[in-house]
């Protein structure tokens, strides 16, 4: 009983869709485009008040940010922390994710609830006691301390995401492999893991990004071995504006690359991790 739509109505609908798409694109991309421009704009253009769009571009603020302000050290620390977090959370979280996806056992719901509760809890506040604990253990102000804290933060997400990705691989394949004489562990490494690899890789980079972005815990746990966001937070107030833009741009690069690579898993991944 659908009313027939006239070409005119369809045309109007199309135009409205295009306008809304245009607004969305402008709203979401403008800040990114503008910080990219500012990151490369020469400081003199920036301070020239009647110059809206800069015309001179330079890499000099990258150079001074990297070497004079020692941002390269912070970037390197950030990468190290993120990689350790990624590996650690995977080694610890993947078996649990597998258990959730493949077994039915008493207490499963409780464990799931525990993971979800951990996810909901404001873990950032643990930075204070962790600092005291790390100071006692002698790993304060180190890559290890920050990584250990970040791992605790991403672990619940990695378990939930990996369990849902592994659930996506049919048990039948694994069973078939076991019928042909593979042990369960062999079946996992030879059959399930390769099939789940794209999704798992996406969630691994997800862990990397969360650690790369995390600022609160990293700032509290470190003094000299600061990660990049901690470094920016501590020094931004005292730095000239153009360094802030360059810093913000560098912070954004991995995020943009990441989103591009995992665009197929976006909805599943964040849908799960945030629920």
């Amino acid at each position, binding site marked *: 009983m659908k009313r027939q739509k006239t070409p005119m109505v369809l045309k109007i609908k199309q135009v409205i*869709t295009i306008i809304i*798409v245009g607004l*969305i*694109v402008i*709203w979401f*991309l*403008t*800040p*990114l485009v*503008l*910080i990219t421009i*500012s990151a490369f704009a020469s400081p003199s253009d*920036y301070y020239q*008040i009647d110059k*809206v769009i800069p015309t001179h571009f330079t890499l000099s603020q990258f150079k001074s940010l990297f070497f004079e302000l020692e941002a390269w050290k912070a970037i390197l620390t950030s990468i190290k922390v993120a990689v350790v977090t990624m590996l650690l959370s995977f080694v*610890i979280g993947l*078996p*649990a994710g*597998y*258990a959730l996806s493949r*077994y*039915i*056992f008493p*207490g499963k719901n409780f464990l799931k609830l525990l993971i979800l509760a951990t996810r*909901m*809890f*404001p*873990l*950032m*506040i*643990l*930075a*204070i006691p*962790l600092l005291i*604990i790390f100071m006692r253990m002698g790993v304060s102000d180190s890559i290890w301390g920050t990584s*250990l804290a970040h791992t*605790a933060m991403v*672990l619940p997400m990695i*378990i939930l995401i990996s369990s849902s990705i592994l659930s996506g691989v049919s048990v039948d394949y694994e*069973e078939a492999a076991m019928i042909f004489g593979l042990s369960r562990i062999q079946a996992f490494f030879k059959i399930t893991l390769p099939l789940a690899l794209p999704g798992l890789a996406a969630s691994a980079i997800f862990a990397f990004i969360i650690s790369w*972005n995390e*600022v*609160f815990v990293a700032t509290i746990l470190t003094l000299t071995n600061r990660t990049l*966001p901690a470094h920016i*937070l501590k020094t*931004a107030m005292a730095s000239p504006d153009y360094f*802030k*833009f360059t810093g*913000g741009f560098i*912070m*954004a690069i991995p*995020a943009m690359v990441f*989103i591009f690579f995992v*665009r197929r898993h*976006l*909805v*599943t991944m964040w*849908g799960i991790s*945030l*629920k």
Partner: protein
Amino acid sequence: MISFSLREKNWIPYLLFLPVLIYLAGFIGYPLLKALQLAFSSEEGKFGLENFITLTQDSTFWKALKNTLYLLITIVPLQVILAFLLALFVNSRFKGYMTVLYIISIPLALSDVSAALMSYNIFTSHGFLNKFLMKFGFIENPIYFFGLGLSSRAFWVIVLTELWRATPLVFVILLASLQMISKDYFEAADVFGFSKWQKFFHITLPLTMPSLQSALLIRTLFAFQIFGVVWLLSGRDIPILAGEVYYQQAELNNFRLAATYGFIIALICIIISWVYITLLRTKHLEMER
């Protein structure tokens, strides 16, 4: 799947979970106890409410609580409404919707530090907005958004930044749940001659309600942890709860008060989650009756 797992020894899943449990006990459970101990100990190390008394007598605490709540009340509803509209729009699957989905998703992976600096780039005195407005003669002198006594302006910049940065997070949750709605419902509705609005209120809205609610809860909980954007854009001009944790620890080296602030954030989050879960459960039961 059941038969498959029953054949095996039933301690395997527990063994697989063991590393996680040990890790969480060590790096969440133990620090949590330590935090409680800090929050409830006096300067001499005795148990007491001294820290909470100090806190409630400090006007900054009340300001921080107020500002955090203001930000929450302003940002979260707007975010959820905007995200819902965006999700409905993208879910209509016009030509090229995947590209739009991709563009909306970019802020998902962006840090709050980065987002704050992007805002700063636009709203600072030499920023794009001021230069643009002056170039075209809308204003004579730059409008200052940041600095002493301008916290009400900075507040709105923070709101905009958070809307830009975190709306996609809600959007993705809602889109995921919209995509789960079976097409059969809408086809059935077509057969009965439902209008577009009827379909929305009788099918889409009720079926996305659980996701809508959980998105609301998650955003509310995260709003109590807001830190990077506020700290970078206004420093302590707009005191907030998480900012005070940082300030007490990093600037004043007062671990006990920092932990007390943290305890209050956690307490609020737990109470909100608890209220939310009980409210939903009763509703659920009523519907079943």
